[in-house]
């Protein structure tokens, strides 16, 4: 099939950026979306033009690196599918496709389709962990966890940190991402003692880093390639409200 692409080109964060038009010829339905772009790039290089830069690594839908807004949707039209796992059989001959980077205040554009998502790392650094040093821990089966809780923790833990939820949210909120980590740890006994501090620190950092707040649009859930449920946002809110009184006057709680 033959396609017309409109691709966001932006030299750097200071550049204004614009959409440019490219033709993708003889595209096979077995190609992934990124392989289609690879082929377009090969042509551009041979013509002496600069290839389109985009982020990707595993190409298996798990590392969370790929990040493109395709026809207005983060990760494109297929539900629960990252861009690298989107295949060209989802498109048809003659389609026009608009490809843009994630857009959010907290994600400055680095170049073309690449944005800077280190703000998400800083949210995890603020408390998205169990504070345990290596060595000297109890036998793994000394901590029993009901299967239902382990399964729910795993549902949340599937988040790949891609940031599509942020890109989809009209407020640029990272609530789904934050709730996935808070929700995972909230379901487990290991991280409980520091739960209050965790949820407050992560939420505060989220706002400090320039992400917006949640006003229940649910666009995040629709865009999430891992199907992370907004129920974790309610869990995050519950954790937060539980934490507030504990933290009053006692920052070390």
């Amino acid at each position: 099939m033959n396609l017309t692409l409109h691709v966001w080109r932006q030299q750097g964060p200071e550049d204004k950026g614009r959409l440019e038009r490219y033709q993708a010829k003889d595209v096979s339905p077995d190609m992934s979306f990124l392989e289609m772009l690879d082929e377009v790039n090969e042509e551009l290089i041979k013509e002496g033009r600069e290839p389109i830069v985009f982020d990707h690594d595993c190409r298996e839908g798990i590392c969370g690196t790929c990040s493109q807004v395709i026809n207005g949707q983060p990760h494109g039209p297929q539900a629960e599918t990252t861009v690298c796992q989107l295949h060209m059989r989802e498109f048809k001959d003659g389609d026009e496709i608009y490809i843009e980077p994630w857009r959010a205040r907290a994600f400055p554009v680095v170049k073309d389709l690449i944005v800077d998502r280190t703000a998400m790392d800083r949210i995890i650094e603020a408390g998205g962990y169990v504070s345990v040093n290596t060595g000297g821990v109890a036998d793994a089966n000394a901590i029993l966890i009901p299967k239902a809780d382990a399964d729910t923790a795993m549902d949340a833990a599937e988040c790949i940190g891609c940031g599509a939820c942020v890109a989809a949210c009209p407020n640029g909120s990272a609530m789904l991402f934050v709730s996935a980590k808070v929700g995972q740890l909230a379901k487990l006994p290991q991280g409980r003692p520091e739960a209050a501090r965790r949820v407050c620190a992560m939420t505060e950092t989220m706002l400090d880093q320039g992400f917006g707040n949640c006003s229940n649009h649910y666009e995040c859930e629709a865009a999430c390639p891992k199907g992370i449920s907004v129920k974790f946002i309610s869990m995050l809110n519950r954790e937060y409200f539980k934490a507030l009184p504990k933290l009053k006057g006692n920052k070390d709680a």
Partner: protein
Amino acid sequence: MILDGKCPSGPLADKWDNHRRDLKLVNPANKRKYTILVVGTGLAGASAAATLAELGYNVEAFCYQDSPRRAHSIAAQGGINAAKNYPNDGDSIFRLFHDTIKGGDFRAREANVYRLAQISNNIIDQCVAQGVPFARDYAGYLENRSFGGAQVSRTFFARGQTGQQLLLGAYQAFSRQVQAGKIRVHARTEMLDLVVVDGEAKGITVRDLVTGEIRCHAGDAVVLASGGYVNVYNLSTNAMGSSVTAAWRAHKKGAYFANPCYTQIHPTCIPVTGDHQSKLTLMSESLRNDGRIWVPKNKGDQRPAQQIPEDERDYYLERKYPSFGNLAPRDIASRAAKQACDAGLGVGSGRGVYLDFTDAIERLGEDTIRARYGNLFDMYQRITGENAYQQPMRIYPALHYAMGGLWVDYNLQSNLPGLFVLGEANFSDHGANRLGASALMQGLADGYFIAPYTIADYLARTEPGKASSKDDEFRDSAAQVEGLTNKLLAVNGRKTVNDFHRELGHIMWEDVGMARSEESLRNALEKIPALREEFWNNVRVPGNGADLNQELEKAGRVADYLEFGELLARDALNRDESCGGHFRVEHQTEDGEAVRKDDQYSYVAAWEYGGTGKTPQLHKEPLTFENIELAVRSYK
């Protein structure tokens, strides 16, 4: 030269304990005076960085991705082994050790592998304490399953995302130390040289992938945890950025490269569809627990799988290896698939065999299969457009893992003092073939539990802050890296970097692939240097060096592969026997099984760099087995 792996003497079970007692310690008040550079934030790098920082050292961590959490380890699907014997089915540390040595075709170091089996149990405890959500049963206990090459259920897993969960556990421990100010992260930064001062590793030279700036970092020790090199074959299951560059550049600075010809070909990948293909996707090996592998008995049988009657199917693994059947080790299962396809029995494009769940679905119900493997079936459908609940999957072997890597001693230190190599980047624990679920185990054992002790022993004998990035060695290194970048940009030829990578991959797969012969290897050793020469005259790298330039990044990696591929082929030629993933067609039994030559090749081949295109020097580390009897590896 005969190399010494420095394995401690004494009874196997006490070696590590005794050795740890002898290792020197760094005074707690002095630890903050030392800086350790950690290249790589996969399981090995992130766990090492976190642990070293917890202990009090200053850590600088580097990765080429935008975040440490995206390292290639994240993609591991199946699980991680440990000798816990929770299922009470006869497992033990000794049995895990035994299976791993035998699985590696007796080409790994006994002492290292025993230590790995011992530590495996601590890893599971550690990960659970971190909140890694492993699968559990209804009583709340951890669940286990079995994996290729093992008859006991010793594999711990988190759906099909074990690598992701383990890496996030390590990344979280790492992030905690970033917050504590003990780790400085340099993401989107690629190591392009190792700096050696007075024979010891004291720093690295990197390129900032966003600004193009070439920078030097000095430290008291360097930890390389930069992963494996199988992308030298172009198509593999590895992430696109996985490369040999960090290890190769260290090799060029004097670190020995061991057993590069040991590469693992994984039997259960989704087959190739065309030239546009950029990578191959693995279907977790755990599928072999319930899937049955077969091909039609008759050549050219074009009927859909369901219409081929039972007695016209060849369940060749069950037939040839009755006691392991579909769970035969990877090299055996891969070779058997290739043999079937070469004999004209392949399905789909001819390069594929069936992995069939019909029986399992009948026996257990579709819901159970969906609960066990649902995400894999979904992934298969996204890539192929086929529904594997209704028709068998098609699979074919693909390059997957590097058992070779930089040579290290028992302390995980290379022959260059101060250079420690962990995880897939070193060579030590898997021998000629790696059993499933053991790479994750090794990465975390190295990072959490071994290197932090052994690095202390080195640092205790080293004065902190000896090297500075202003030293001559650093300036020379930066100039060299700068020169290479300019050279790549100046060629301005007609072929793209990908064109060269594809051509190299083709040579590697055809001549140095699943089956090798003296002839094919000599052929590769002629073709690779020619291709390398063409590369330097005809590659086109657009753009410039002072910018984010992905073609330039790739060009540097492919340039290294064009040198490294030659070493791999040379090692394969030197090893005139068949073992594990290294199959020399000259050495096989009548029914196609590998024939080892223990009297001549029971050694680690460690190569010393001699210059591009020049013959490298071979050093041998003899392998001795005191606790296990060398036997023909049989899975019948």
